[in-house]
């Protein structure tokens, strides 16, 4: 009996109540921006105001921002605690924004901080800030919608609107891609359009057309952990077609310089084969989808004409793919399409031989691209007279 009492007493005496945090004391960080400063790192944390999210829209703003500076990222993070009465709580983090300058030097430090011991959930999006500092990005109030979970955080709304340039990589994916020799990392880039200074004003969410908006239509390419360059909107789309990461791809082309044809691909099949002896990469890309815009006066009831339209689209698609692949080999010199990985899967022994030299081999390769577009849906109106 004594033992039983002693055992039960342990529940109360030896408990881990030290870890205990009562819920109201939490300050939930929804996004952090990391910048490079002279002292080391500057962390800008966006903390959610629960009153606002839960529906009590008093005069408060949905989020507030605190900044901390330190030699390491963790030191900077500790400094945040001196600025607020709440416990700075990272597990609910959605977004990490890294400034371009810091990304160029490498994001290994950031991954180390995020993955080592601060209990950040891995489903965090990493973005690179283009033309602005990460702190600026954190300080933009986004109008969003009135539904609480969408206005929860000004940043996480970003990726929802990314359409075909959206990428979704969690922290583990990012860490894996950095370590892999046969593949390279590409993440979203974010920038602010409009008046950057207005972003932090309350007016920004009061006006119907916000003066400052966050925009993510570009991608940021990395070589190992170092940022090497941005892919613009067109290139980003082509990148996604090559990698098959989105579900819908749009190709537009102009025929005879005035008739617009837009095609939305719903099925995507890409085959990449490498011939190292001839230093050639053969890409075979097949897209199947529907016509969305069609101002070209041609009789679509004739199957031959549909094929003709497809040929125009093929030309455009091929042009776009050549652009991105050339940029990948000549300008960025980084294997964006996991070509090395594909060699490894086909011939692991050969990959072992060339693995260490892959960085130098890749830029010397040339792409040979064949495309095929199949239109299986021309819509309800075949011909507009």
């Amino acid at each position, binding site marked *: 009996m004594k033992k039983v009492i002693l055992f039960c007493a342990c*529940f*109360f005496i030896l*408990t*881990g*109540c030290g*870890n*205990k*945090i*009562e*819920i*109201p004391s*939490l300050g*939930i960080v*929804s996004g952090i921006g990391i910048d490079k400063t002279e002292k080391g790192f500057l962390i800008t944390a966006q903390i*959610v105001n*629960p*009153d606002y*999210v*839960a*529906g*009590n829209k008093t005069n408060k703003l949905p989020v507030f921002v605190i900044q901390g500076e330190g030699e390491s990222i963790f030191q900077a993070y500790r400094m945040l605690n001196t600025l607020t009465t709440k416990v700075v*709580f990272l*597990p*609910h983090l*959605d977004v990490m924004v890294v400034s371009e300058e810091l990304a160029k030097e490498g994001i290994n430090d950031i991954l180390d901080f995020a993955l080592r011991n601060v*209990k950040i*959930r891995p489903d965090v999006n990493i973005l690179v800030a283009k033309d602005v500092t990460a702190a600026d990005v954190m300080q933009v109030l986004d109008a969003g919608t009135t539904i*609480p*979970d969408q206005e*929860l955080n000004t940043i996480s709304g970003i990726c929802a609107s990314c359409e075909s340039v959206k990428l979704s990589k969690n922290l583990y994916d990012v860490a894996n891609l950095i370590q892999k020799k046969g593949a390279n990392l590409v993440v979203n880039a974010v920038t602010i359009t409009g008046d950057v200074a207005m972003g932090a004003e309350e007016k920004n969410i009061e006006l119907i057309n916000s003066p400052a908006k966050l925009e993510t239509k570009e991608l940021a390419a990395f070589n190992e952990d170092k940022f090497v360059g941005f892919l613009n909107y067109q290139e980003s789309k082509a990148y996604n077609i090559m990698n098959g990461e989105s579900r819908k791809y749009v190709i537009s082309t102009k025929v005879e310089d005035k008739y617009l044809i837009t095609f939305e691909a719903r099925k995507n099949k890409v085959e990449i084969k490498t011939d190292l002896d001839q230093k050639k990469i053969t890409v075979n890309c097949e897209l199947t989808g529907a016509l969305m815009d069609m101002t070209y006066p041609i009789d679509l009831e004739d199957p031959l004409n549909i094929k003709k339209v497809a040929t125009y689209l093929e030309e455009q698609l091929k042009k776009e793919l050549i652009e991105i692949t050339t940029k990948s080999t000549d300008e960025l010199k980084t294997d964006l399409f996991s070509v090395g990985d594909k060699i490894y899967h086909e011939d692991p022994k050969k990959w072992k031989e060339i693995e260490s030299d892959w960085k130098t081999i890749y830029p010397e390769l040339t792409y040979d691209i064949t495309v095929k577009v199949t239109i299986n849906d021309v819509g309800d109106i075949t011909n507009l007279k």
Partner: protein
Amino acid sequence: MNEAGSHEPQAPKLNKELKKNIQAIQETLGNPSDLMIREFKCHNNNNISCAVIGIDGLVDSNQAEDFIIKIMMVDMPLLEGQGDSKQEETTFNLLYQFRLSMIDTKIGQNFDDLYSNLLSGHIIVLVDGEQQLLMMDCKGYMIRSTGEPTTDNSIRGPKDCFVENLRTNTAMLRKRIKDKRLRFDSYIVGEVTQTDVAIVYIDGIVNPEFVKTAKERIQNVKIDGICDSSQLLMLIEDKFTTFFPRLLSNERPDKITAELLEGRVAIIVDGSPFVIIGPASFNMLFQAVDDYYSRPVIASFQRLIRYLAFIIVILTPALYIALSTYHQEMIPTVLLLTIINQRSANPFPTLIETLIIVILFEILREAAVRKPKGIGDSMTIVGSLIIGQTIVQAGLVSYIVVIIGALTAVCTFVISGSRLYNSARILSLIFIVVGASFGLFGIMVGCLLLILHLCSLSSFNQAYMAPVAPFNLHDQEDQFVIFPLSWMKKRPKMLNPQNVIREIDESQLQEEQQ
């Protein structure tokens, strides 16, 4: 028949003189007002003195007058001289063999027989000069008519239920099982109350070990008296400290019939409408009679809901406390923000908040059971409306805790058909303490300990967790999902019945005839 009370060596013999016997009876019983003694002279062999004794209220006095007193006082003198051959018979034998036309008539030898039968509603006939007595069953006390079952409700299925009278209950079972192998073994429990207890089983189906165990345990009960079958149930349960019921009780004759057919043993206690079933297993706590009267798919769904409700009852409050004090990262962000917002005005820690709601519910529940019937409505208003509403507005607890308390409460009603309900409430409190102290880790360890504990239990020396542990593929047909009745051709193997097959095939019939 009365094995427990009949073989005491020094039972005092009856006196030869009737007067002294009557005097002794009056002295022993304290000459109570309900003791009826009718002395008269039997107009037969030399006007011999006789006495008819009974307890008012326990015996049917009309029957006693018509079939005993009238025959002895009026008919016997009239018949005299017709049956001349009986002249040599003593009055006592004459009465027993030829005159008293009661079906349940026995001859007693001593005062013990006299008292035990007299006090259980028999009519006693004493004849002067005889050291024997006649005991006639003439029970005629008021019994409740069989109403609808109040505890184990069903939408379909029979609406009758057991009553407080053992004999009525056995009759109800006989009516349902018209098989010559149905057995009632009778025992007496309680030194003072002398309560009749009957072990019911179907010979040829039941595993004899169960009957033996039940018999031994009932005979080993040393107590002055029992008021209800639940007391006997606790006395004969397997000895191990736990809050899970190792034996079940039920007031539905159809349920008991089904259990007997599966090869279990039932124990009927006089004075209680609840009949004990043994051996019980954990899955029986989730069975409801409706399961067997509905389509298997629907019944399976309902049973899974019951399992779910049990898990909700024992784990939800604990999980809430653990998540909200240690593992906030596991709560969806928006929900977490809502909780933060709600709780920002609450002064108490989560544990205290939850305990307030859980204990408040227990108080309301207890009040609902104990209150006199007339004041029910006012309690509902005060309890649920006023307290429930204002406790949140006053900032004592947050909405989310009220939701969890209410959810748990509703789920306890789902499993309240059996005694599992009480176990679940205690378990819930234990898990709350463990969750508040150790977080999810504690809850996980608690679950493991609970499973270990359940696996260590036994009922009538049968594994309590059967057919899950030890696993038995055949018996899964009535475990989580219910198979159609036509597929259940065999009795549960875990009970080791003598006859596994439900339908008797022809070869077995021939064996029986031989």
